[in-house]
């Protein structure tokens, strides 16, 4: 049982606390600096919204893949080699002319890591987490996305093990484009539902 709350002294600067924990764990052989570097580098270099964009581009160009993606998101992203923590129970929700989907985590910061990487600061903010489940249309407009009155809003709170990703609508004027060109126009925010393409 920790007694941390009994301390009244000024907390050490955050850099020193992080270093203290790392040194303590490394000195006991619980981990290595190299292992920590590898974990971090995977999320800085290999795991990010470019993965989700590839999934979306495939769904736009291959109707059978899209059906599989909407039926079982985790299995369909695995076909493209994506998976891992926070992606084992992936559900993909589809935007249409009359439905707009948006994802949030009111309790913490759950996010579909294998396809979108780590979330941006605003997704983790108190304001986004508190307001998206109460006034999504107002909040989205403040964030730059004005939705027409015909648009029904569907909010997905990642409260259990399911992680959500939005399948944006394919923009007009992209007929005949390659998957690679299509993936290049898919933004992270469009897969969160904070923007439309």
């Amino acid at each position, binding site marked *: *049982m*920790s*007694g*941390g*709350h009994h*301390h009244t*002294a*000024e*907390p*050490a600067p*955050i*850099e*020193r*606390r*992080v270093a*203290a*924990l*790392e040194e*303590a764990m490394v000195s*006991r052989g*619980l981990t290595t600096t190299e292992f*920590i*570097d590898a*974990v*971090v580098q995977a*999320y*800085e270099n290999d795991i990010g919204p470019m993965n989700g964009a590839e999934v979306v581009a495939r769904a736009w160009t291959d109707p059978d893949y899209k059906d599989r993606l909407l039926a079982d998101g985790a299995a369909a992203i695995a076909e493209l080699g994506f998976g891992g*923590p926070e992606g084992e129970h992936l*559900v993909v929700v589809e935007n249409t002319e009359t439905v707009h989907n948006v994802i949030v985590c*009111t*309790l*913490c*910061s759950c996010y579909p890591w294998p396809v979108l*990487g*780590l979330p*941006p*600061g*605003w997704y983790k*903010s*108190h304001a*986004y987490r*508190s*307001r998206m*489940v*109460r*006034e*999504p*249309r107002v*909040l989205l407009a403040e*964030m730059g996305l004005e939705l027409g009155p015909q648009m*029904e*809003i*569907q*909010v*997905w*709170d*990642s409260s*259990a*093990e*399911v992680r959500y990703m939005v399948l944006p609508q394919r923009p007009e004027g992209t007929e005949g484009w390659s998957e690679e060109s299509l993936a290049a126009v898919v933004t992270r925010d469009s897969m969160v539902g904070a923007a439309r393409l």
Partner: protein
Amino acid sequence: MDGVHDLGGMHGFGAVDKADDGPAFAADWERRAFGLAGVVTVLRGHTFTPARAAIERMAPVHYLTSPYYEHWLTATATAAVELGLVDEAELVERAGGSFPLSRPAPGTESALAVAPPYGRQRFGVGEDVRVRDISSAGHTRCPRYVRRHTGTVIRVNAPTALPDLEAATGEIVPEASYCVRFRAEELWGEGEGWFHVDLWDSYLEPT
């Protein structure tokens, strides 16, 4: 627990700062904190539940005023101390100042607002369900804003560990969860849109 982390529907947090959109890690200490959290998660058997529970036990003012990755650091250090992997005095000494940890976990009895039998799957797609009035001192993934409200099951999820029980006792008991769809009027008395929350069977009761 009825903590400050349970933000759904709260007023007063103002505008979302869309410009807070930088790289995954803004500083090197954030990288290290994330990596260390990964290490402890692996040591605990690849579950995020103890870390989430430890973040929720942070003193409320500390939670609301500290940067995001300080939550991870605090939870990771708390877990490492509670598991006996490192000791608190050593952390304080190495840091050269105090090292605030999360508050102690509540006793098992007050921690749990769910009760056996666990592991059930009582509901099906299309059924209306009511969210129980869950209010425990311990970890739960039943957000306050859906308590006592009625929604409709639109998906049955594969059974996964009931987090309340895992956090309180360490027991892993897989249980079905459901995607439950709520109308804005049901949750807030007004407004528009549909709100979907994934809820374990133990959180629900028949209407």
